[in-house]
């Protein structure tokens, strides 16, 4: 069995690495994206201020108008601690708890300073001003935040199209049919494709990571082993998604459409480019269904916060279990022709 899997693995690798244009594109694309986004759009939604709120904003009384201030996005937090972390990282400009009239700002945040003035102005008619609490913390630059997302995105494209498109092409041109006439089983064939793609994705993204590390200064506070584990599980999960898509389709056009249907929602709703905090709850819930959300979130927690494997275990568990389910479905519905 391993001999047959190895034969298919080698053949697929040769095909991938010798296709220079495809290989080049796989490496160049994410690097270009990172440079463009890191330097051209370094401001995270500059027109809006973000105010975190713990509890209800007053709807009557002297400060009733604060909650309707234009250009301020009010984000609900369940507790002060969660909001404080966001203020530390400059992801939220000010955290306000109306019940206790306390607020938190980061002394190094220019936006925090402006929003603080708005808050105090709103309470100018009240008997007691809100109480200031200062927090400290370096700003998490957009580049720190976007790099885990871009690597995840690159894995997604490479996995979905690298598996889905290739298997559909093999089926269309009769390569699968020829292999089906040998003792190779469907499971052996799929394992070889998964292993080949997994290895390719890990190598390509390692090259990208190392390359970026040389030229761009970004945060990596966690362990490399944890990060590798997250990306490994992410690769497997997205490859299995590609397998399900490619299980029966024999037209490249249809495959392209279906793969885009999978990839574009993930591209925009997995929090790769912008945070979904403040987004409509249905969008946030929907994002939790997307594997890329878990890959990106886990990678960010490791790289930015230095989270351990245990701290990202929920993401890893979701990725692991859904991979097994997808693989079982893919193998079950797979057709050679």
């Amino acid at each position, binding site marked *: 069995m391993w001999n047959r899997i190895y*034969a298919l693995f080698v053949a697929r690798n040769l*095909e991938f690495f010798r296709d220079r244009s495809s290989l080049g594109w796989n490496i160049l694309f994410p690097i270009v994206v990172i440079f463009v986004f890191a330097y051209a759009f370094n401001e995270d939604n500059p027109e809006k201020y973000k105010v975190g709120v713990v509890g209800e904003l007053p709807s009557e009384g002297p400060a009733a108008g604060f909650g309707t201030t234009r250009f301020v996005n009010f984000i609900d937090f369940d507790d002060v601690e969660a909001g404080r972390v966001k203020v530390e990282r400059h992801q939220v400009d000010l955290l306000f708890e109306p019940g206790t009239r306390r607020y938190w700002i980061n002394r190094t945040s220019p936006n925090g300073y402006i929003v603080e003035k708005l808050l105090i102005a709103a309470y100018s008619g009240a008997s007691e001003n809100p109480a200031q609490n200062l927090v400290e913390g370096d700003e998490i630059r957009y580049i720190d935040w976007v790099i885990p997302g871009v690597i995840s995105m690159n894995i997604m494209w490479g996995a979905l199209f690298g598996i889905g498109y290739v298997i559909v092409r093999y089926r269309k041109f009769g390569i699968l049919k*020829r292999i089906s006439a040998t003792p190779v089983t469907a499971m052996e064939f799929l394992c070889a494709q998964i292993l080949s793609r997994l290895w390719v994705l890990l190598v390509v993204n390692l090259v990208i990571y190392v390359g970026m590390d040389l030229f761009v200064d970004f945060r990596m506070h966690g362990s490399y082993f944890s990060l590798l584990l997250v990306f490994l599980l992410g690769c497997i999960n997205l490859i299995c998604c590609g397998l399900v898509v490619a299980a029966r389709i024999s037209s490249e056009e249809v495959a392209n459409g279906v793969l885009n249907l999978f990839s574009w929602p993930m591209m925009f709703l997995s929090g790769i480019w912008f945070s979904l905090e403040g987004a409509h709850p249905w969008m946030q819930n929907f994002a939790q269904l997307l594997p890329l959300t878990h890959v990106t979130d886990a990678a960010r927690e490791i790289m930015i916060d230095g989270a351990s494997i245990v701290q990202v275990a929920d993401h890893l568990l979701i990725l692991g279990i859904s991979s097994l389910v997808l693989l079982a479905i893919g193998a079950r519905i797979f057709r050679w022709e």
Partner: protein
Amino acid sequence: MPVILQVANLVKRFGSLTAVDGVSFDIHEGSCFGLLGPNGAGKTTTIEMMEGIKLPDEGSILYRGQPLDREFRNQAGIMFQTTALQDFVTVREILLQFSRFYPDSYPIDDLADRFALHEFLGQDTRRLSGGQKQRLLLAIALINRPQILFLDEPTTGLDPQSRRNLWHEVQRIKEQGATILLTTHYMEEAYELCDEIAIMDHGRVIAHDKPDALLAAHFNDVVVQLRQSDMPPEIGEREFEATYRNDAAHIVTGDVNATIEQLLHHDIPLDHLRIRARNLEDLFLELTGRELRA
């Protein structure tokens, strides 16, 4: 010779079309069995069911008395009508890949020698000519030392020289004891290679026997053939019941002397006259009213 492959009442439908409609025959060990028929007759569907690639809707296929199983996969060599190979892979690499699929494979250099592939071993498979690619595909089909070999229209699209070379190879494979199942729409190919043939049309077997026995059973006459320009259809069809195809008039007769006398009587020039025995193409025309290559 014992039966190696037994096909009984095969039926295959695609929607409302019944592509194969109750086909049965036995293939004997060490023989070359030919499936003949025009395009769309159901040959490829039949052979693909026998290869285990397609599942029949009805009927059974037994290899050495057993349903097609993993052992059959190890013992069968298959060459499809059209096969694409992976891109960016050389001839040696593709042979190596297929050799790893089987427990017992021919050494690649032996196959390269046998099929004159040595000078192309390092070449990308996409840059092979039609004849070279067919040789490679035949080498792949033989890589597992098959006991039964399926060849689906192996010479379609080849030039006459390449076709002859491939026939020569098939003869050699047969001499080494392998059983061969061949589909073709070339009458000459079937006659040259096959011990037994089945003619298919509209998904059914309409005749099945040894080639000479089939001809003997259906014909006791010969064909007198003339150039169409020497005998215009208005005379040929009226006086000789001639049929016209490929720029030639074909007169079927049981009495050649009488036919020639009659031709002389009508002042038909005999410079290009040919007398030939009836062949499988005539038989197919007789049985179906259609030309074999239609």
